[in-house]
């Protein structure tokens, strides 16, 4: 803010105006809904008092209802599993592809661009495509697996409660790989090539070079990729909406979809806000850990 006033005083009126607009935008579209949501989670809200500011406060009652819900722990477990598996595989496959793309071979840049195509596709479209792939009766995946003799009877990827969460997770991993690959590629490009040459001369093999040089040099990039990955994965809503709607019987339900279900399917808006507040708390923890770890790095 003080920079803003200084800007006004110094006659950088236009710059200051732009900064002010950005500030107004952020306050209106980020800060206000955020605070409004937090407040709502402590109030009694129904469809008709949604737009009111004054509503009865109920303390932690909404949170207590959540914790008492038989859905709470299964959904928490699903969310954790979904995030963990998504991050691990997106990172591992993305890293592998990034290392591969580091090699100079004809068409490398072209191929990298091609990978991005998956990333720019809306998740709803991706969901629609995966729905066809995963379809139990006439799905592409079952067709190939049966042709190859890998499965006997059809697998019901989306309606079998034992695997539906993993099916959505696979679709999400696929969706997230390009993003991981691009960020990690940029990180890899920043490591000076002659260091590898020197290490190779000193007799370090490929695995040693990766472990003792690449990984440490990539620390901050990896930190950023993981933190952003967690945040993006917790925001993944469209795949659940298009593939399973959290079903069958909540088998593939996760916090972000549950929050929507509570708010807009059963009009339990206060509980829906409470779920998103819990998620907000978790994301803040991730962000703080990330910021602290990078600050530590700068000092070192």
């Amino acid at each position, binding site marked *: 803010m003080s920079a803003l006033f200084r800007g006004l005083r110094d006659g950088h009126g236009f710059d200051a105006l732009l900064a002010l607009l950005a500030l107004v935008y952020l306050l209106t579209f980020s800060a206000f809904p955020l605070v409004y949501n937090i407040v709502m989670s402590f109030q009694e809200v129904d*469809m008709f008092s949604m737009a009111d500011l004054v509503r009865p406060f109920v303390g932690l009652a909404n949170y207590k209802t959540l914790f008492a819900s038989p859905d709470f722990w299964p959904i928490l477990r699903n969310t954790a599993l979904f995030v963990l598996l998504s991050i691990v595989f997106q990172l591992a496959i993305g890293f592998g592809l990034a290392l591969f793309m580091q090699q100079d071979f004809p068409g490398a840049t072209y191929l990298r661009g091609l990978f991005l195509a998956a990333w720019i596709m809306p998740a709803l479209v991706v969901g629609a495509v995966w729905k066809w792939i995963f379809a139990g009766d*006439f799905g592409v995946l079952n067709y190939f697996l049966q042709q190859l003799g890998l499965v006997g009877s059809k697998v019901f990827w989306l309606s079998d409660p034992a695997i539906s969460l993993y099916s959505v997770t696979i679709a999400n991993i696929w969706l997230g790989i390009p993003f991981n690959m691009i960020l990690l590629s940029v990180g890899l490009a920043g490591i000076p090539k002659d260091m590898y040459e020197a290490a190779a001369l000193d007799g370090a093999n490929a695995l040693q070079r990766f472990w003792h040089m690449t990984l440490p040099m990539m620390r901050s990039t990896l930190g950023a990729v993981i933190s952003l990955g967690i945040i993006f994965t917790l925001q993944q809503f469209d795949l659940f909406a298009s593939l399973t709607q959290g*079903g*069958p019987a*909540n088998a593939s339900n996760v916090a972000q979809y549950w929050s929507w279900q509570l708010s807009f399917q059963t009009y339990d808006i206060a509980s829906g806000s409470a779920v998103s507040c819990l998620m907000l708390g978790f994301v803040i923890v991730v962000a703080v850990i990330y910021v602290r770890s990078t600050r530590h790095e700068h000092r070192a």
Partner: protein
Amino acid sequence: MRNMKLLLAGALALAGSTVLASAEEVTLNVWTIDREEDPGYMYVMAKEFQKLHPEVKFNIKHVEFADWANDITRAVATGTAPDVAYVDNPNTPFLSSKGALLDISPYIKDSKVVDPSKIFPGPLSTVTWDGKIYGLPRGSNTIALYYNKDMFKAAGLDPDKPPQTWDELYETAKKLTDPSKNVYGLAFSANANEEGTFQFLPWIQSSGGNFDKVNGPGAVKALELWQKIIDEKLASPDTLIRGQYDSFATFNAQNAAMAISGPWELPRMSKDAKFDVGITLLPIPEAGAKRASALGEGNNVIFAKTKHPKEAYAYLEYMYSQMPRVWNEFGFVPSYPVEVKDPKWPAEYAVFVESMKYAAARGPSPDWAKISKAISTAIQQALTHQTDAQTALNTAQTTIEGIVNK
């Protein structure tokens, strides 16, 4: 005779009622889920009404069905609700009980066109709250059992004797299921949304239960039958994540020999289904048991804050008077007995009109959304064997009692 009277009353309304004498220009804001093109029920009705009452202008807004509850509550909360709107029938009690809708009982009392005692009990119960009437059904729909006559013949079954009871449905589905040809016996919807509840509720109702009594022995037996049908793969396991539209597509594609769905499928079916189709009432627990059927479609309502209640009511009344046209032009089943001239798909029409007599509403309850969720949750828990049918329905019953008795 009664039908003739109604038609006459409709013609009177057409000729221009005397209610709207003032020449002052009025604009009615109307919200609808219809699309202007094909078939655009509320748009067509507005155009016709305007010819009779040139002083009334319309401002019609299309709202996606999925966004409806969201948009309308925001509009009510911020005081920008329309004058007239379509409301899905299970949502009507919610809005009526909150005072968002105009009580039109006084207008009906003076009306020559509307006689609530003629309206089928199902649709009437959705617009009634606390003894007052808050809207008029614009048409209805319900579900029945479609079947593939060609497949019946091929399996040595009599195509004129479709299953009538739950046991017969199971036996027939079993005979018609042929995994080697990718054919399931039955297609229906048991998803975790409103559609699952919509399809299951009639089974509860025909065994003597209702939305507030879901764990009776008949309801348990019904859910166990659904379980058996899925377990033995007489219906695709994807039934658990499929809506009615996707399920019925498998029937049209001859990957299911029978399907439970409503009249809204007829236009698509007449294009896609390359086989001889039969239709019959929804099977009942045993011969002689009570019949029931789901009730769909919605109501035309007036919002309480309207500045033009008279004009809005006249528009509602006009739409109501046009009920004899809804089947052929818009695909709704009439909500009160009318004569439909030369009905399209006559066999199906006969079955759905018969079915309408038994069509029971979902609710009515202002908390329908939560009750529905409890029922669909029970269905999904039983079908995935997380619990047995009895336990799942007991849990739902406890939840529902908590909601109803609060």
